[in-house]
């Protein structure tokens, strides 16, 4: 789909816990072809403290209702104001932005590793992978059980495993401490990961060791979101590349990560 600026209407507001909400935003126009991993840049209108738009992964798309959903974790002024939107409000949204994950060409067993709010980029991916006949395994990590959200939704699209740092759900430890990596890492045709950078680097390291293809979805501070300000660069083997247009999804082999 071509990128557009639209006023989308908040048509549902689902609070997952004290700081996570899912907003469903409706367009007046027909949506088509949004790729998993693409994002939306949302204007926090009229707030004194928030000048620039805020980027969010597209969490789900409903082509029948022409809606996109975003999962928002409130961490600062912008995300807090967006989390408090009422149904009926209009939000100015630029979407879809970025490149998106690449799906395997043939039926494949794939692993999705999400941490924190990075799971937002993985839901639509899990759904599309399943729809395309791939075998999906999902590993979600969090600090504590309360930070694990949407497990049931993920379970619709694959087998879900979890880790928590305090052991209150699933395996105790980081995602990379999970037995999946020790016991069946090489059995995956591809690993997709999104979450805090240290987590993604740890996953990328294991993927490299086990010779598994791996794509990561990066975060970055963005001014425009569509490739004109050159503020959101990351170091790649081809030099500085914009996360908003060349990414947010990168094959780990392109990144100059010290891993």
């Amino acid at each position, binding site marked *: 789909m071509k*990128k557009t600026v639209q006023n989308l209407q908040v048509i549902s507001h689902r609070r997952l816990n004290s700081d996570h909400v899912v907003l469903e935003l409706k367009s007046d126009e027909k949506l088509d072809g949004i790729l998993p991993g693409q994002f939306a840049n949302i204007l926090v209108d009229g707030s004194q403290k928030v*000048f620039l738009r805020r980027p969010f992964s597209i969490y789900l798309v409903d082509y029948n209702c022409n809606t996109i959903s975003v999962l928002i974790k409130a961490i600062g002024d912008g995300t807090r104001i967006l989390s408090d939107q009422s149904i009926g409000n209009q939000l100015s949204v630029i979407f879809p932005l970025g490149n998106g994950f690449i799906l395997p060409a043939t039926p494949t067993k794939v692993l999705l590793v999400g941490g924190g709010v990075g799971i937002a980029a993985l839901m639509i991916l899990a759904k599309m992978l399943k729809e395309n006949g791939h075998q999906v395994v999902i590993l979600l990590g969090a600090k504590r059980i309360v930070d694990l959200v949407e497990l049931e939704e993920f379970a619709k699209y694959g087998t879900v495993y979890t880790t928590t740092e305090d052991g209150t759900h699933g395996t105790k430890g980081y995602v990379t401490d999970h037995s999946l990596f020790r016991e069946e890492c090489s059995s995956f045709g591809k690993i997709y990961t999104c979450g805090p950078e240290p987590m993604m680097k740890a996953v990328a390291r294991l993927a490299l060791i086990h010779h598994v293809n791996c794509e990561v979805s990066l975060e970055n*501070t963005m*001014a425009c979101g*569509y490739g*004109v300000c050159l503020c959101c660069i990351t170091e790649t083997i081809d030099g500085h590349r914009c996360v908003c247009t060349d990414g947010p999804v990168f094959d780990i082999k392109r990144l100059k990560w010290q891993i």
Partner: protein
Amino acid sequence: MADLNIDIAGLKLKNPVLTASGTFGYGTEFEDFYDINTLGAFVVKGTTLHARQGNSYPRMAETPSGMLNAVGLQNGGIRYFVDHIYPKLLRFDTNILVNVSGSTVEEYIACAEQIDDLEHITGIELNISCPNVKEGGMAFGTSCPAAEAVVKSVRKVYRKHMMVKLSPNVTDITEIARVVENQGADSISLINTLLAMAIHAESRKPVLSTVTGGLSGPAVKPIALRMVWQVYNSVKIPIVGMGGIMNATDAIEFFLAGASAIQVGTANFIDPLATQHIISGIDDYLERHKFHSINEIIGELQL
């Protein structure tokens, strides 16, 4: 529909709305959003003789009603521009200016010479005001002799429209403006960004990799307006105003202060359609106040 045509020292624009360098890529990025031929002109990203990687990440900080950037003129260099970008610009039917920077006078000259050969480029915007590079850049725009040297030299090799973009980081902007006028600039654009800084209190670190960066957005508008007005009262060549223009009302303020045209920068990030709203808003204003042409309000501040 009022008459929005404006002639800037021979540069004929269908309307006085341009986009600012570094905020509009090469124009192509906006094609999904609107027909960019509706613009009076657009200014492509800062171009240098040699390819530049730009500064390290992070390059951006949000500030009250504004932002800092420290991009540092990331670009493929003039050869890359000529070979790979220019061909894509041929399909546009509006004025295109190339923003030119350099670390030495020689670099400016070499770059301008190559642009002089490009038929489809209507002019250059000589950037003597970039605060985000270690050498040259802003230094040329904050000292009269340096400004004189670069403008004079480029004038010798560049025959089409030469707009010179001034730095606001000076004690007296009119001094530099007069030097630039005397050395043959066709027009003056201002302001570039203000040298500024952001600190992250919790981590006790600067937000930008370069410590300081350039401030843009509505926060700087009152400073930009003052400088446009001062320069308007000091030189005879036309002025292209910018700094924090978000909507048509802001644009009108710049015309009244003396700008013959305006550039839209940071606003593109907030609203990719900003220029389109500004163009129609200017028309509305002129009609509402019964002016026939944009020319009737330029410099018409009622003192």
